């Protein structure tokens, strides 16, 4: 199988995409290359890549059929070491010589993404992001910062399906208006009920849905939004130096989640056009989508894994905007201590207020 490594035309070293320069840069001789100029170079290399590397991944017979199907093995062009990875890995680095490699085979044919948003933030920014994420969290155990150790930091191009759609909506809401008055003996509350009808259209661009089962859906939705304005046409060269997955959930399966989000937003958007009522609840919501278009894109995400008290914590940072997310453990001792303190303060204030009310 074909394995791709970008060789520096100057010195022959393996080159990678530099997120700060937004260019390819050779770590050995510091030569920089424009992405455009690599397009041609890329094409040449592809032709060269059709070498007859005919070798067998199933030489050992002890693999089960499932494992055999899921594993891929490659020979590193630089050192000759064997790289084993799973079927969805599209870019990684060689475990022996650490050179960035791209599995050309995985990206061929229908798998080729339409767009890629290149990494703008580097590994240092991701580690810095974690540090910032851990500050200002009152209930985070103090020793978490000292005792958790960073197991792994990796930049991953995550496959996303992007959905464009025009939505037509027919929506019915039930609303109420409340009026109160009183005479000498009674307080009156008058509730008027209304049926509200709204119809119209609204359009959505590039609603992303995570196309990889290896990435938790909630984690990927939490690092949103990505700015699609900075997306560029896909080139494999962008992948050099990062990990990349290809999708394993296809567009048809992903569209359900996009529909759900589009519908929620449509109902909300029309809800905001209803003004002057005390309560508004959706009763019947009919949202039809048309002109649906699907795009396949790779979005940059930094993933950080840490361990604390034998439990794994996963954090993610948007490789474009720097938005950092990840759930953290709670210091329950501190929670109850301060809970008790606030209980005493609030109770004393309330009891004092009761006395004051009694005295006045």
């Amino acid at each position, binding site marked *: 199988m074909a394995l791709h490594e970008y060789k520096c035309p100057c010195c022959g070293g393996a080159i990678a995409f530099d997120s700060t320069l937004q260019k390819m840069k050779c770590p050995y001789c510091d030569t920089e290359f424009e992405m455009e100029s690599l397009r041609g170079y890329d094409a040449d290399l592809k032709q060269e890549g059709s070498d007859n590397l005919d070798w067998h991944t199933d030489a050992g017979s002890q693999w089960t059929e499932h494992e055999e199907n899921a594993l891929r093995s490659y020979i590193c062009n630089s050192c000759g070491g064997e790289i084993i990875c799973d079927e969805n890995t599209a870019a990684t680095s060689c475990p022996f010589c650490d050179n960035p490699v791209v599995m050309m085979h995985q990206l061929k044919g229908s798998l080729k993404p339409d767009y890629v948003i290149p990494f703008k933030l580097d590994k240092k920014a991701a580690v810095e992001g974690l540090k910032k994420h851990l500050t200002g969290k009152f209930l985070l155990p103090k020793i978490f910062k000292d005792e958790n150790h960073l197991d792994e930091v990796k930049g991953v191009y995550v496959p996303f399906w992007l959905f464009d759609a025009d939505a037509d909506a027919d929506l019915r809401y039930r609303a109420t208006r409340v009026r109160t008055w009183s005479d000498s003996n009674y307080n009156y509350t008058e509730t*008027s009920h209304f049926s509200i009808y709204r119809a119209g259209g609204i359009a959505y661009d590039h*609603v992303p849905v995570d196309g990889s089962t290896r990435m*938790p859906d*909630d984690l990927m939705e939490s690092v949103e939004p990505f700015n699609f304005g900075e997306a560029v046409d896909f080139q494999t060269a962008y992948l050099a130096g990062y990990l990349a997955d290809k999708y394993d959930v296809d567009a048809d399966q992903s569209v359900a989640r996009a529909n759900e989000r589009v519908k929620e937003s449509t109902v909300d958007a029309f809800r905001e056009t209803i003004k002057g009522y005390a309560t508004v609840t959706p009763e019947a919501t009919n949202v039809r989508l048309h002109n649906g278009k699907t795009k396949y894109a790779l979005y940059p995400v930094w993933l950080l894994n840490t361990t604390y008290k034998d439990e794994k914590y996963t954090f993610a940072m948007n490789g474009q905007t720097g938005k950092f997310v990840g759930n*953290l453990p709670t210091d329950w001792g501190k929670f109850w201590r301060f809970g*008790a303190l606030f209980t005493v303060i609030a109770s004393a204030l309330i009891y004092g207020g009761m006395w004051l009310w009694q005295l006045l």
Partner: protein
Amino acid sequence: MKTTKRVCSLLFVIALMLTVVIIPASAAPTSDGRIIVDNADMFTDAQEAELESLAKELGEKQNCDIIVYTTTSLDGYSAQTYADYCHISGYNDNSVLLLICDNGEPGNRDYHISTHGDCINKLNDSELEDLKDDILPYLKSGDYYGASKEFINKSVEYMNPHLKWYMLPLAILIGFAIAMLIMSAIRKKLKTVEMQHGAREYVRAGSMNVTAARDTFLFTTVTKTAKPKNNSGSSTHSTGGSSFGGSGGKF
């Protein structure tokens, strides 16, 4: 931890000071009339003396007379009228009176609490009800001395600003609820991973258009609730030209 304890104890001291400060100190002379009138001979002489000194001491602090009047017959009057007449003659203008009438028919015996002057305002209807609840068990068991002593003590307690016993646990409960709300709000900062709601960021700018909008009125419902009654003072009535408050019943 240390600072937490210190703050806790400070708060308790503040709460204690609040309760101490509210007892007003005022002393004024009362009239010379007998304030324990035991026509039905319910008390021993010693009990009578004890009740009298207690009523006198507490009554001076409140600038009012606290009177206990016992009888065996209402002479055809209602308990309310009889009680009101009892403390017209020769007492301080501000007075509260307990009438106990033991006619020897359990279940048909009368008692009545009557207030006059400032005491009408100092004991409101709900406080009178509480006072009745306090003394009724003594009356039912025939312990008239106990009932009178309870009446003297509790009427003074209710005339001072006071809170019902359940107000403290209630305050703590509400305080706990507020504290938990604050703590969960702080804890929420630790959770940053969740599925997103909607796709608001991806709406094409200016693409929304409303083609139809109808607001149709359906119907109206009206509910009415009784206004809460005024809390200051008790309801009054007039006996013999002057105004009285109070409440009573049978035992």
